[in-house]
């Protein structure tokens, strides 16, 4: 059971960091933030299903 429940991707190793002057961010956080912004943008522009079908209502 423990093998099944163990993480498939091991993140328990020293992190990597983006450094830009005084700005620093871990890859982990950066991935979350980028995914968040991308998801927001996709949610804005992606076509919403069923918008034409309900014309008659």
């Amino acid at each position, binding site marked *: 059971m423990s093998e099944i429940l163990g993480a498939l991707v091991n993140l328990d190793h020293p992190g990597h960091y983006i450094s830009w002057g005084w700005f620093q961010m*871990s890859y982990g956080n950066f991935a979350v933030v980028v995914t968040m912004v991308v998801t927001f943008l996709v949610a804005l522009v992606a076509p919403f299903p069923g918008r034409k079908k309900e014309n008659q209502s």
Partner: protein
Amino acid sequence: MSRRNFNPDRDVREWTGAQRPYDILKEGAIALLVVALLTAGLALVFGSPDEKQVTIQQWSSADPVDFATTAYSELAGTSGLAGYGAPYNNASDGQFLGVTHLYLAKMVGVHIPIDPAQTFVLRPLATLPDAATVRFALATWKNASDTERQNWLNEYGKATLSFTHGQLVATPLSLSNPVDVLIASETAMARSGALDSAMVTGGGLYTTDYTNVLLFIADGGWFATLADHQHLLGDQWGMMNETGSYPGQAWLWLYTFWYQIHPFSTSGNADVDAWGIMMLLTAGLILVPYIPGLRSIPRRTKLYRVIWRDHYAGRV
């Protein structure tokens, strides 16, 4: 609404147009299922961090000199905590809030009183059983005048500490200096693991309060070295970082940000200033609907035209 003029950033004519079928429960059920699967998947793929706790025993074994130096600073009253101020003691005024010069912590007062010498050195040592030399040193310390104590502390402070053959050695030192016995015994006690329990429980059995032991560990240099390796220090944006490569509390980015820039990065009042700014900004976020200018941003940026493009195009 009739009394005041229509303000497009505040008012709206309620919708009387077309409706379409909407199954709110089905939507909720699908969302819950998707989130549950996503959670299960992410947990399976990435797991979660659990960097083991550190103990005083580990600290004193890994870096006995740092430990002994810290214990000495607690006894001498020169540690970070000894000079902290409220809520632990009256040793300093603490931080004041930006331009207001309000010493908030000091105003609230000392509510978690801690005497570092007693809490971290003298009281734990007194719990050692059958230790005649320690008991004698404690009695000598207790009966000495402030001048005598200060002389011993000064002499010990100038000595060089080393750890050889399982023993803490301070040289040069006069034979009659009880500080030597106290610190060496505390180091031995720490390395045996006895200090952890003595300091955690403070004499009792049950506890859920680890204030003393955490403050003591945090006063040493070893703990910060570990955090430095994990990139968790304040000047490393550490508050939003996590051990290993996991994402951390990314939502603290703005709070963390203030610590990185001038004047806060070099200010002794950075903590209270960062908190003050964040409280102000949080209030701003909460009150967006009432703040002219801020509440006009959505109408002026016109991002809403993308969101409601089907509506504006007459497709719905």
